[in-house]
């Protein structure tokens, strides 16, 4: 049992923190990073590639650096602290994750090097108008055409879907709308005929897209994972996403808690720093408790996300999301309240942290969704640590 980072991990942490501090050191910098049409900085993306961040989860054979969940945790925590806009989650964890976990060797060779070197960005298109958080709820249809498929349907709120070169799309190759069987994943070029991408700003300063698929042809080589058996891969990818989001949330909460405590020490009212008020002190402690509980669960996520037993793993990651969501809400709401008016303004970094924390709550399943998943899995008792 050991919670220390290895020296390589510590080095990674220092490097990415330095980079984030240099590019996201202030709200103005963040605004500048997000002003381009992509909603993030291509220069920063190139720097991510240069530092090797984009290759972390891929094996060396795949062209990556063979990092594990702890490396991802380290990176995501730092990106969270900076509220970085670059599509790390979308490309490396989501799209890249699907290719990594389900792609054929040929597909991996074709796609992963581009991800790693920063020339290719991906997005995962899985939410639909009616699906809410259910990954198995897929109405996008396919029909066979030659040795490939033709896709028809629409995908909603695809994170960074308007700046990706490739989309990983879930579609139904058999069965009914909510069947677990019959879902397949396809790699679709963003500029393929019939793909219409409508990008827009998101509440947290990022980008997402509505994507219409109309007669989109994909070859058999673009299939990710076995035909009709795409759901387990999609679920795995979302487990990795939850682990990554947990780390991002911890980075944000730590920074926001720090800002809040600092504010309590400096803001003067009634002739003294407001941090002298015991009620506000205790609320800052409640935030700390929520943060530390989340930090523990982010570590738990990093451990469990590669656990073999799928049921235990699923319950564990859902439990992580429940705790992260609860902590996000406590820390975010209390931070705004303790700041008062200033915490409500776009000019204040803390407000942006709060908005991102709020959005993290609803990404990849809200509290009710994951609490139910924990229950369906029979609770957490079985899904303990390896111990």
């Amino acid at each position, binding site marked *: 049992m050991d919670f220390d980072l290895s020296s390589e991990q510590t080095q990674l942490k220092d490097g990415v923190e330095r980079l984030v501090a240099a590019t996201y050191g202030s709200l103005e910098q963040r605004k500048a990073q997000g002003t381009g049409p992509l909603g993030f900085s291509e220069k920063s993306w190139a720097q991510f590639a240069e530092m090797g961040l984009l290759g972390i989860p891929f094996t060396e054979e795949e062209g990556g650096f063979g990092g594990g969940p702890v490396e991802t945790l380290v990176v995501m925590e730092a990106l969270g602290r900076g509220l970085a806009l670059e599509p790390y989650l979308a490309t490396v964890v989501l799209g890249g994750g699907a290719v990594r976990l389900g792609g054929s060797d040929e597909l991996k060779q074709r796609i992963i090097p581009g991800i790693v070197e920063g020339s290719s960005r991906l997005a995962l298109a899985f939410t639909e108008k009616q699906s*809410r958080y259910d990954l198995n709820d897929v109405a996008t249809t396919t029909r066979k055409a030659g040795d490939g498929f033709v896709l028809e349907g629409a995908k909603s709120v695809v994170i960074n879907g308007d700046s990706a070169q490739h989309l990983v799309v879930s579609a139904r190759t058999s069965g009914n709308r909510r069947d677990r069987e019959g879902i397949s994943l396809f790699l679709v070029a963003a500029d393929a005929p019939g793909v219409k991408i*409508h990008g*827009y*700003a998101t*509440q947290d300063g990022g980008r997402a897209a509505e994507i219409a698929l109309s007669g989109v042809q994909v070859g058999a080589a673009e299939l990710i994972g076995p035909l009709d058996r795409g759901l387990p891969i999609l679920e795995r990818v979302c487990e990795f996403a939850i682990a990554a989001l947990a780390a991002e949330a911890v980075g944000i909460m730590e920074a926001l808690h720090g800002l809040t405590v600092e504010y309590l020490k400096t803001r003067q009212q009634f002739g003294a720093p407001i941090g002298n008020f015991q009620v506000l002190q205790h609320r800052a402690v409640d935030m700390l408790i929520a943060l530390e509980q989340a930090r523990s669960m982010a570590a738990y996520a990093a451990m469990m996300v590669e656990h073999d037993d799928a049921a235990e793993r699923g319950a564990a990651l859902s439990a992580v999301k429940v705790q992260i969501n609860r902590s996000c809400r406590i820390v975010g709401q209390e931070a705004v309240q303790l700041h*008062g*008016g200033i915490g409500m303004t776009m*000019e204040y970094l803390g407000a942006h942290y709060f*908005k991102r924390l709020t959005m993290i709550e*609803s990404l990849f399943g809200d509290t009710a969704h994951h609490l139910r998943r924990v229950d369906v899995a029979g609770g957490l008792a079985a899904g303990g640590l390896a111990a």
Partner: protein
Amino acid sequence: MDLRFTPEEIAFRDEVRQFFRTEVPAEIRKKVSEGRGMTREDYITSQRVLNAKGWAVPHWPREWGGQDWTPIQRYIFTEEMLLAAVPLPLQFNCYMVGPVIAAFGNQAQKEKHLAKIANLDEWWCQGFSEPGAGSDLASLKTKAVREGDHYIVNGQKTWTTLGQYADWIFCLVRTDPAAKKQAGISFILIDMKTPGITVRPIITLEGRHEVNEVFFDNVKVPVENLVGEENKGWDYAKFLLANERTGIARIGLSKERLARIKRLAKEMPAGEGTLWDDRDFRERVAEVEIELKALEITQMRVVAAQGKRDPNKPDPASSILKIKGSQLQQATTELLLEVAGPFALAAPVRSGDLTNDWPFDYDWADAAAASYFNNRKVSIYGGSNEIQKNIIAKAVLGL
């Protein structure tokens, strides 16, 4: 003891209900219901509809346009307005500066302003808070120095809601720097067109331009714009803040939002059916509904006691309206956010000056998170809930 309304009160309720739902434009009420920002014109249109009926300022003295309504009628009126998602008449006009001028202004001030305030011919904003004077309002620093028949005003106000539209601002300013905190403050009226005033927008976290900073740089204000006596401004401010507390819990607004949440949940697909098929979700809604029902009765207790209680003995029931009312407003926005689910991520498309056409069925979902963000303010403004609790601890519990 009888919680039922009398037949007359029910008739009154039906009359105002009918009026609100037929006379106030539906598109304005939809904006209010969805928690989107209104335009300047929306405010004016809506208030003038009310004023034409004589209902913009029913709580004012009769001679200045008020109605001799009972506390229960006023309560019904406000609740029905909120339930119908009718915008309240501009608070700064009708509930703040208007009553202060009516009570403490001189005849000239009354004649000059009150009718225009009621009809929103003059748009007023509030100049109380300052960067260093929030919860501790009495530590304000903006000063007004008398020079002949003018005051020269210098300083800065902040959180000035809708100041960008305002013709006038009513300000607390320090006129006696030697006096202790509350003692040296005056209440003055300032024309926003006076040279030396700068308004700087503050964009709040939902992306809307609702509040402002207002800077005063050697602004000349005629002495006739002083309300009441010099250095007595703190008393008028206290009067203003205590005025018309019954609407503060915003029960009607929360009820209206709950009704909307139910409608939307019944349309929002989830699993095999809709979100409303999920008993857990329904029970979470019911929990808020129950607390809201309790608070509604609490509010009715306060209304029924108006005029009957010893005004020097604080009413424990009234003290909780702001705290619990704001908590429930926030709880409803949390539920709304939950309904929107993954679609809450999209940013506002139509509020304020943001545009972003979003080809999506849930055309309300983009305002869900915005409404959640915006409503964080209700536990902060008008004396934060922490300040309210301090007051209750002292005044009611004697701690």
